[in-house]
């Protein structure tokens, strides 16, 4: 997948590039609107990550022009402006998603995966997780064709860990993904532990859950 990152904050752009490269995306960088437009007219991208506050104008102005050249790309707006109006304006102009800064790279990747599944009609099959099978679309988990009941939050945590397999996710990262940014200013990350305990208990009734590892002092990881 080819990604264009339009972000004037270079350090941030490099970190995103670094992360996405590891996830096997091919990245191009642009630091202003004109540079971005030039790259969009010359290449075809699957994803365009667009910052709004750019030195030569508002990123939103780039959106309609970019869509002309590259109608099939998925657009994700990244901005420190979290206003409802901005969000609506961005989505109205045809953006696929909206991520307020500061965001987690994992969150960005999850959103990109979600858009890819939806937009690019990737065939979703049952994905293997140990002896279990996951249906991310329908949000179900099976053992030998038998459906296992997980609560909404439990499935969220499990699928998030699954999407970022082999990577340690801190409790904070999980918690932010599950509860979002709006809920509370001082949640207690023990709740993640409680949920993991429940997930293990429910799954262990069917098969071993060695794939779900606790990383001491840091968080959790699903090993594939």
């Amino acid at each position: 997948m080819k990604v264009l990152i339009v972000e004037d904050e270079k350090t941030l752009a490099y970190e995103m590039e670094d992360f996405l490269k590891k996830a096997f995306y091919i990245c191009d960088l642009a630091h202003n609107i004109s540079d971005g437009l030039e790259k969009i007219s010359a290449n075809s991208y699957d994803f365009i990550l667009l910052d709004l506050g750019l030195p030569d104008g508002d990123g939103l102005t780039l959106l309609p022009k970019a869509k002309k050249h590259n109608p099939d790309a998925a657009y994700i707006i990244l901005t420190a402006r979290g206003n409802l109006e901005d969000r609506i304006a961005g989505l109205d102009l045809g953006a696929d998603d909206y991520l307020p800064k500061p965001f987690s790279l994992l969150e960005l990747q999850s959103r990109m995966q979600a858009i890819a599944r939806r937009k690019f009609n990737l065939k979703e099959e049952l994905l293997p997780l140990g002896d279990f099978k996951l249906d991310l679309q329908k949000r179900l988990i099976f053992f030998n064709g038998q459906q296992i009941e997980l609560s909404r939050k439990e499935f969220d945590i499990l699928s998030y860990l699954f999407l970022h397999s082999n990577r340690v996710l801190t409790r904070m990262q999980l918690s932010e993904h599950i509860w979002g940014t709006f809920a509370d200013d001082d949640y207690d990350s023990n709740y993640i532990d409680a949920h993991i305990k429940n997930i293990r208990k429910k799954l262990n009734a069917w098969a071993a859950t060695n794939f779900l590892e606790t990383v001491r002092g840091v968080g959790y990881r699903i090993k594939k």
Partner: protein
Amino acid sequence: MKLSAKLILFITSSKLAVVLLFVISLPFLVNGIVSEYISYSLRLQQDKVIRIIHKNGINYYLQGDNNYGSYTMLKEEYIALEPSTANTRIDTIKTAKRLVERDTLNYRILMHTFNYEGKNYLLEIGKTTSSINQYNKPLQRLALYVLMGLIALSLLFDLLFTRALIRPLGKIIKSKLIDRKFPFKNHPAPIRTSTYDFKYLDESLILLMEQINEAFEKEREFTANASHELMTPISILQNKMENLIGDEQLNEEAVVKIADMMKTLDRLKKISRSLLLISRIENEQFAKSDSLKPAALIREVLDEISHRLEEKNLDISVQLNDQVLLKGVNHDLLFQLFYNLINNAIKYNVPAGNITITDQEISQNSYLITIQDTGIGIAAEELPFIFDRFRKANLKENVGYGLGLSIVKSIAAYHNITIKVSSTLQKGSTFKLYFKLK
């Protein structure tokens, strides 16, 4: 008491006191005046007698007798003329008793000795004092009536004048002080008055309001800008750490340290977000166009938060009227408000404690939701400050960042919700939310 009432009361009572004093002292005054007048008329009569004697001779009175005496029918006045043996000259007016035809009466008496053709004579002219007193009562009564009339009239003028005088003050209070909601959005016009003091007061108040507005605006701008500007550096740091922690070659110790750093960064992020949220609420960037049932909203909150209840083994009882509908509100903000309050009720509760959420329709347009917990409570001296930003209560180590309740306050102010808090240490806290139903 209002200033005008006080003024009128003072004016009335001071006038009444003066009148009372006057009426009480009236008999003495009348006495004084009347006796002055009598002395004066006695002297006139004396002059007349002396003049007659000089003109017509002493025999005009004595008519051959040794002495002369005459009095009016009711013995109110008398005149006596007799030779005087004493060599001393007397010329006085005094009050004394005289026996006139078996009646002993009090007289004001003029005694005057004079020499006529080598002989000394004593002239006495008397007037009864009772004739003096006869003026007193009617005078007093008349004075009382006239004074009362004058007082009533002057009070009326006073009342009208003070009212006119004080009216600008009332206007200032009404337009500048009563029901002023901060920040002051509409700039009230200056009051028209010719009283310098009121003009000065009014101008000072307007200036003060403008200064407060400006300061508030600056603070609001600062909060918005600061928290906004923090987002990009936090974003950079977060992404760098995420990339670092994903590095397979990193040893375990370093990973734990980075995870710790991420925790701190996360805190910074949440503080900035909370401040930004508060500033957005204060800048009215949220639409208030939702209608919702509080009962349903609180069910939503509890869905989200129920795992925390289980963990602490808390019992929650929710008794809400499913019919009540709040209109013109923002769903997300009210969700946040109840989330924060219920979350606090859980966080500061004791194991196996209780939380009770009840409601009450106070009147046609007033609705109350009460959230009560059996938690550790808030100390009385802390209570006034719990909604202040960054104010940390000295509760355990499990304290927040001091913004949860600030957010509650902003949301409540934005929705015209009045919050009242009561709390007893070790017993629990009660939050009462008064909604206005439209």
